[in-house]
């Protein structure tokens, strides 16, 4: 391992492209290289009236998984800023605050990302692998921080947002992986997402193509049923046309449960660092 890893890896892309499996496999990969890494995702998009949830931080199948809860993350931030647990607890419960968070787009991401970066600050050895929301949301997420910089023109929140943005946009700190399937449509969307992200942030954005049939059946194309053959040929064409833009090409796993699929991938992820 000659390249020093970043501190925050964001995995994004359309739902169902294998983000969760890949980000967990990547945590395993980092661990295998003796790095301290954890898998992190956001539990909820809005402040809910019904659920009383907490951030959870547990070890599952050998990796540390953190699920952040919006309310608790918000409470933590306000507590740090106003130096009062009581006031923070009261504020997050007010209908006014809840409406504000739920109504103002991207406020939730600001809260979450604040918490993520705080965690990174607390432990300088830690590498966070963030399983980010599906495409459109990833843009909202990246954009929200800069939006808030324009909304708050001065004051503590402005300064905090500014710091967050600087870190998030620091290419030595953050790297974004867009995950795509090997189909024309999925690829186009990945390219759109990459372009959108590049317009908003100077950090490195790479595309990984997941679940490719072609490498498995390359030798037996003529024995495939028509649909699968067509699919494999489309993949071949896509890979040939865009190989230079594909950071990593991962084959379809013959396993059918997610843990084994994850294990299958671990060895192939060194390029993602």
């Amino acid at each position: 391992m000659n390249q020093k890893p970043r501190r925050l890896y964001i995995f994004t892309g359309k739902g169902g492209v294998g983000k969760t499996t890949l980000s967990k496999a990547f945590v395993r990969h980092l661990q295998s290289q003796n790095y301290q890494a954890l898998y992190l995702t956001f539990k909820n998009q809005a402040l809910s009236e019904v659920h009383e949830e907490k951030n959870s931080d547990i070890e599952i199948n050998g990796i540390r998984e953190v699920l952040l809860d919006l309310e608790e993350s918000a409470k933590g931030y306000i507590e740090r800023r106003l130096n009062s647990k009581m006031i923070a607890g009261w504020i997050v419960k007010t209908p006014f605050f809840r409406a504000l968070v739920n109504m103002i787009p991207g406020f939730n991401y600001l809260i979450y990302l604040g918490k993520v970066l705080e965690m990174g600050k607390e432990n300088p050895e830690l590498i966070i692998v963030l399983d980010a929301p599906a495409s459109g949301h990833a843009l909202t997420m990246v954009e929200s921080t800069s939006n808030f910089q324009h909304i708050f023109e001065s004051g503590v929140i402005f300064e905090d947002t500014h710091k967050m943005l600087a870190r998030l946009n620091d290419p030595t700190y953050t790297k974004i992986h867009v995950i795509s399937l090997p189909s024309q449509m999925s690829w186009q969307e990945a390219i759109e997402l990459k372009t959108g992200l590049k317009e908003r942030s100077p950090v490195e954005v790479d595309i990984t193509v997941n679940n490719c049939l072609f490498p498995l059946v390359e030798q037996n194309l003529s024995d495939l049923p028509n649909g699968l053959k067509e699919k494999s040929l489309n993949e071949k064409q896509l890979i040939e046309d865009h190989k230079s833009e594909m950071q990593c090409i991962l084959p379809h796993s013959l396993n059918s449960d997610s843990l084994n699929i994850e294990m299958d991938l671990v060895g192939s992820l060194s390029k993602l660092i």
Partner: protein
Amino acid sequence: MTIFTKSFEIFCGTGGVGKTTLATSRALALAAQEHRVLLITIDPARRLKDLLGLSNDSIGEVTAVDMNGIKLHALLMSPEKTIQRMSKKYQTPDLASNRIVKILSKPYGGMNEILSLVEVQMQFETSQYDVIVLDTPPGAHFLDFLEGISKIRSFFDQSFVEMFSYLGTKTAHASKRMLGIRIINKVISGGVKKLLSYLQKVTDAKFIDDFIEAVQIIYQSKEAFLKGLNLQDRLKSNSECNWFLVTSVEQGKAAEAVEMKSHATHFIHQDHFLVLNKCLEQEMMNWFPEASNLMALKNSLETREKELKKNLKSQFPVVLEFPEIMSKDPIEHVNNLTKKWASYAK
């Protein structure tokens, strides 16, 4: 299996499952039966544009589409255009005139969901369509979209009423810029006042000013927003709305579909459809490979699909299966799916 046509047909799914293609093919199948159809997509990837041959100029505008003689209307959501239509229809101030609201209604600012509800409501009120087919944003977006309804409600909830009614009576003749801090000091609601004072501690006076103005300007548009609430009742009724929850074999995400359903129980009625796209079953049934790697592949694909179906059928009242269609031509692809929809039609 017969699917009855409703005034609203909503497609939800985790993205990458072919949701847009399915919604489009559904809209075409309905249009082919002489229904007057409007297809709305809020998918930011705007795939529909390519599929229907729409140009960049048509974003945000209802556009007549003619696909092989089947006529329908299509609308690609644009927050900006919806805001314009809103202020025209309801004679309200332009939301985008406020600094904060303007930033928040950028295409990825995230106001898409709420505005799309308003848009659907406005389009419904034109009475020009028998069916509005709605292709919602993927995954978590979908939940946001539904949450949008409760967001509207909570935004205009009790704690705001005091402030709003104060603003409403006192500011009718005052210039907006004159408001700001003075208002805060006068607002009686202890909670709101206290909260704004904390907010001021961490932001600045200008923000509070703009914020008050934003609240006020949104309040003036409340009629449009609150109409979204009427829509919620319609969407909840199984005589007015068909819900299609879409997932695909390729994704193998039964758990996510089930989770989607459990999140959505407040919003959707029990007569919903689970649409399982990209099924390989037919093709696998007639394939007898000899090479061991291909046998392993067939086995892995079949096992995944079988497990998925078993799981889904135990959780959903109706599972509609659509085959994987391998075609480079999106039009041909959609046409194939349209035929499948037609077979469910009544």
